[in-house]
């Protein structure tokens, strides 16, 4: 970094400036929602709120606590993430390990690999997907949200390639000491793959937390909705087809932007919080120096 030519300096300023702008662009909408959720309803309706709450009040959050549906949906989402991510990770690891072997070690590896990749490229479509879930009796249960997405192929590919990048000598040394595949996987591969595992865990958490469409289609009762499906029904604009004049009238009276903002904010919070906790696993170069060639 001691070569600070004027050109390099100019580039740095421009680069950091641009990145700063982009990151501000990402934060501002969230800040706006945050400001709305803590402002008084009258300040919101007259458009006074931009990025900082006007006339602080936590009334919207008290509303959330008073809404059993919201808390129920939140709990469903928590269960879904716990169950779904656990299942995702277990299966990802167990599939990625054998597939990371050379074909001479594991015959038919290519066939298996294609078998998985095929599902990434092609799917049966919405209706067959729905029928399968219905016929297998998963409908309206938590399992319907977890089992169909139990094997995230993309994550498998990420982990598989990471495994391949690990020095073969480490595996061989374990073998020499009499270790089997499980020892190699759990005592050598996994501890060395923490950055990759952290990444795909994050993918899995975010994916499960944010998906809403499956909940909307597969759940038969509002009480079984995960949080994002529930939020979708709170946020989107009503299509008046099924509403009558009387209902439009009643609906108009219920419009409440602050409480919607609060609900969105609370829903975004857990994922925001997960990030810093996983941050410390994003360490580079852990295998550096383990093998001398």
């Amino acid at each position, binding site marked *: 970094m001691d070569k600070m030519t004027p050109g390099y300096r100019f580039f740095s300023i421009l680069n950091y400036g641009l990145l700063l702008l982009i990151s501000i662009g990402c934060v501002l909408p969230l800040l706006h929602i945050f400001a709305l959720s803590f402002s008084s309803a009258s300040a919101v309706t007259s458009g006074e709120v931009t990025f900082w709450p006007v006339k602080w009040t936590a009334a919207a959050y008290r509303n959330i606590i008073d809404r059993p549906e919201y808390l129920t949906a939140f709990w469903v989402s928590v269960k879904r993430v716990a169950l779904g991510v656990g299942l995702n990770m277990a299966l990802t690891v167990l599939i990625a390990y054998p597939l990371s072997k050379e074909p001479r070690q594991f015959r038919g590896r290519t066939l298996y690999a294609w078998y998985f990749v095929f599902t990434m490229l092609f799917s049966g479509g*919405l209706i067959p997907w729905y029928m399968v879930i219905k016929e297998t009796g998963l409908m309206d249960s938590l399992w319907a949200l977890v089992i169909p997405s139990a094997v995230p192929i993309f994550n498998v590919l990420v982990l598989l390639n990471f495994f391949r990048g690990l020095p073969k000598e480490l595996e061989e040394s374990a073998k020499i000491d009499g270790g089997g595949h499980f020892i190699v996987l759990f005592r050598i591969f996994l501890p060395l793959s923490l950055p990759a595992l952290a990444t795909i865990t994050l993918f899995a958490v975010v994916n499960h937390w944010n998906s809403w469409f499956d909940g*909307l289609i597969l759940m038969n009762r509002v009480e079984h909705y995960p949080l994002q499906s529930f939020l979708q*029904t709170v946020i989107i604009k009503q299509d008046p087809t*099924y509403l009558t004049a009387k209902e439009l009238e009643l609906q108009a009276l219920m419009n409440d932007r602050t409480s919607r903002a609060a609900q969105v904010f609370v829903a975004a919070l857990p994922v925001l919080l997960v990030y810093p906790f996983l941050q410390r696993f994003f360490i580079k170069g852990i295998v550096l120096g383990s093998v001398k060639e």
Partner: protein
Amino acid sequence: MSVGLKKTRIITSIALALVLMLVTACSKTENNAAEGSKSPEASTPAASAPAETQAEIDPNAKFDPPVTVTTVRAINAASMTFHEDESIDKNAVYDSYLRDDGVIIKNDWAVDVKAYDEKLKVSIASNTLPDFFLVSAAQLPQLLENDMIMDITDVYNKYASEATKKVLTGDGGAQMKSATVDGKLMAIPVTNSPFNSAQFVWLRKDWLDEMNLPEPKTTQDLLKISEAFATRDSGGKGKVYGMTLNQNIMWNTGLYNQYHAYPWSWVKDASGNLAYGSIQPEMKATLKQLQDIYKAGQIDPEFAVNDDNKAMELVANNRLGMLFNQFWYSAILQNTIVKDNKVMQNWKAYMLPSIDDQPAKTQVTASVGAYYVINKKAKNPEAVIKLLNRWCDVLTGGVLKEGDPKSEYNWGKERKDTGKAYYGINPIIVYLTDVNVQGGQYIPEALKTGDTSKIEWSADLLGRYKANKDYEAGDLSKWYETLISGDGGTFQGMYEYFKQNRYQYDEFYGAPTPTMTEKMELLNSKEKEVFTKIVMGTSPIDAFDTFVNDWMKLGGEQITKEVNDWYKQHQ
């Protein structure tokens, strides 16, 4: 080596293809088998129906033992209240149906009204449908085409009560006709008042008084008002506009109706054929006028991206005093205008003025937005008709008595008026076609004299009467209701439109034609885009003529032909 590889590849792909064929073949035979086993089942109700009807013809008889019917529900918090131990599956209203009619209602699923359409689409596509359910007008043709719903002509004729028939044909029969295909009744229309979509111009009355402006008698008056409003000072909150358009430019029909333009509806042309309102010369004149007003800075330049919330910000900051909307718009204004126990602004809804000596008509439609249909495989279609009978009885059965078990259909298990809405829980709901017009005729009168005898037959009207009284007694949360059903309110306007014969009906009220289903969405979005651009001056007014040509070419011609074919059949 490479040859060998190629060979294995070919063999694999052939094998794969074979496997796929096998799989599809298997699933097909399975389907056939399933259908085969189901078809005799499906024919039983038809076979047993005549036998049953001979045994009992009384449409009011109770089922003993009770029968179960399945349905799916859209939950709308605005019209449904559940007590702690109640849910959409178990509640006082459902219990009442079992008690009075011997019908057990079972929900296959029940989701929020906003998720209903999506969920229903999948249910239809996968053919997992309940005995009866609510569908939108857009979905009805699909169900008919796939032969999934029952012809209910006989069952309706035998079991529908007099009250039911009266309610459903209250509009002269057009709404029932829209559910009839080749003389067969295929669905129960969710009858509703065509008058409800009448438009009004909502104005800041306090500004009119303050600026000594006359109430609008003609469109010229209205243009002057808009001009005058635009010169006001909001006190540093930003520029004041004369009026705003709805984000969905298609919603402001009242605005165009003043110029005798009837966009998005079908009108009779000079030769007696139906023509599309949006492409008529009157529409061009209206757009030209709007373009001029916009150029003069009287229309909010951001109208095309502003939703209702943004419009309310303008209202809250005293930057807006004129809007075109339907009778219930005061309910949207309520939260903005009534603050800290004070009504901050005085609004009033006026009937549409006209650009010339011909009075303006407000465009309405007799078409029905949604239908109840009965599954072809349903075993007890007559039970569904009984649910309908019960609802129509509640609708017209007169004033509810506190403590009467029958009041549970409207008041829930408390059996008294608690101000909460329960009626939405009823599994089949249709509406009277003219209840709001009658409200306009009788509520203001009743408010003056205190004599409620003319509105006591309807719990809805009586509720509105009471809300007016509450407002007079100082309950400001009922402010919106006085602008609806009070003296000079929109209900009275709806009645006046009716008396003066100022409803312009959409001449086409059938199910969407094939080309409509395919092309209308595209045409509508193009139209919206072109009209918005013309108003904003980014396209010259002559873009309208180009649009008319494009519209015809992009499927409009075919749609016009189909609509006219329909029209000839239904005359």
